[in-house]
């Protein structure tokens, strides 16, 4: 008996050591570059420190107060929400419509699919650059449209009101095709017999769409909206390449761009950390809500 326990312990020990050896490369890296930064960010957010000098003093909640009473912050948070909501709503609506078209056994589906994902795999920094040109009222293709209308088009990037919408347009362009492929995949799994039954009931395509397709597609809509929203509030590349928050800062700045500016241009490590901690709380809360609400709102069928 004793010998058997000893043997099984020996075997278990070998298994456990193998397990630890297999998971340790990732766990060590996660500890260093993910778990520790969370703790350290929280710590830094209570410190007055500008990255350049020796460690500063403990200042309680002063950094949070500084960051969130900053007059720029309202614009930055407002911009981030406008950007994320606009990209999610516009891109989803267009993508859904596109998926409905693609679902009609059209020719050239393969070609279209290739094209639809292409913006998603394109380096955002490069895409942002060509969009500067596309939106230029003199150099871009839109000048044809402005010419036809007999007006001079707006300089999106030189306008504090419009610069954010230039950023939104790239966000939509990158998201539409991507989302449409997900919607199409969802549409293709919908049960045919439901539609046959519905056709006996009603003549109205709109009613079928409203009461059958939309509820059945709600999990996909929900999933894409939340993941799209979380991705959108992290927007940085486009802002950095296109406007750097301008034309007059922070007209088109977003949360992460502001964070970058605080930390790496103004070297306010403490303030930036407070800003980062709040961002962490927000994104984790949204992800948590995602799971909660999914159960309540979303129709998953039976």
């Amino acid at each position, binding site marked *: 008996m004793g010998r058997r326990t000893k043997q099984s312990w020996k075997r278990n020990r070998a298994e456990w050591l193998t397990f630890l050896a297999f998971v340790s490369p990732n766990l060590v890296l996660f500890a260093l570059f993910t778990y520790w930064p969370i703790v350290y960010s929280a710590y*830094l957010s209570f410190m007055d420190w500008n990255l350049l000098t020796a460690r500063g003093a403990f200042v309680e909640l002063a950094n949070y107060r500084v960051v969130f009473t900053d007059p720029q912050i309202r614009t930055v948070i407002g911009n981030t929400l406008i950007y994320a909501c606009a990209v999610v709503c516009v891109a989803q609506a267009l993508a859904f419509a596109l998926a409905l078209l693609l679902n009609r056994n059209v020719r050239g589906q393969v070609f279209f699919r290739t094209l639809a994902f292409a913006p998603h795999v394109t380096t955002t920094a490069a895409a942002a650059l060509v969009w500067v040109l596309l939106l230029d009222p003199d150099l871009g293709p839109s000048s044809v449209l402005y010419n036809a209308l007999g007006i001079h088009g707006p300089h999106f990037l030189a306008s504090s009101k419009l610069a954010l919408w230039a950023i939104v347009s790239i966000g939509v362009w990158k998201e539409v095709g991507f989302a449409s492929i997900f919607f199409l995949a969802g549409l293709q799994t919908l049960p045919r017999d439901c539609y046959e039954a519905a056709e006996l009931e009603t003549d109205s395509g709109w009613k079928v769409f409203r009461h059958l397709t939309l509820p059945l597609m709600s999990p996909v809509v929900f999933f894409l909206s939340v993941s799209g929203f979380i991705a959108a509030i992290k927007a940085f590349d486009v802002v950095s390449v296109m406007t750097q928050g301008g034309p007059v800062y922070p007209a088109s700045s977003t949360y992460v761009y502001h964070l970058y500016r605080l930390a790496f241009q103004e070297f306010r490590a403490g303030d930036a950390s407070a800003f*980062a901690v709040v961002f962490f709380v927000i994104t984790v809360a949204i992800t948590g809500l995602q799971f909660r609400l999914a159960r309540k709102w979303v129709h998953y069928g039976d």
Partner: protein
Amino acid sequence: MATDRQITRIAPAGSCIPSALLVYAGLVFSAVMLALPFFWMALTSLKSSAAVAAYPPSWWPSEFTWSNYRDAWNAAPFGRYYINSVVTGAAATSLQIIFALLMAYAFAVIRFPGKGAILLAVISTMMIPDEMKLVPNYILLSRLHWVDTYWALIIPPAAHAFPVFVLYQYFRTVPPDLLDAAHVDGAGHLRILIQIIAPMARPVLAATALVAFLGRWNDFLWPLIVTNRTVMRTLPIGLNYLKENEGRWNILMAAAIYVIIPMIGLYVAAQRQFVEGITRGALKG
């Protein structure tokens, strides 16, 4: 009325000509809008400087100015940028896949007390925004004297929960009999992983690796922070700095083509794996 119904009806059905026309019109318009940025980038990169400045802009270059590509190549050290992007991207991707293989196998196959909690801790890192880690990781890297080295671009991204998650899902579908048989033959875990499981998972590995490489290639914020010297920049960062001193749009667009063309080529060549990798697990998630 009948046409009306055909247009809006969702279920695929035999369509009549006007509605089919509308569908194609919608698709062609969408395709044009999706493709326009690529077209304009390529078009501008081939225009002469005079043609770029012309108003209204032309939709086809009067003469193809291929020398823009030579000028762009000389305007910034693109050869070096390519080496940096390829080396650090390939290294980080390889490590991500190797580490994920080991970890996913351990979670799926090896017994260990409290395994579930560790798995949860790993999966939950996917919720943590990278942006939150910028300041602490920068400080850590500067302590290690890794700022402005390849290590900064390779090691922190080498651990990622996404490939672990995808591979773990896949490994759980491997029949246990197969593993038991291998065990009886006296094979250790590492041998089973390398000789049996990994080869079986090759399609999943390819898809996961492509997504990882895509992420490295297009990454902007992290390399922007941890590279200072020109020779350490990756392609997107190099392009970003070129933009600041280069006023000629044709040269900039040629440079942008340099940045995107390898990834577009890879995508077109391995489209199925790309799409599978990006969508895998997402809808189940």
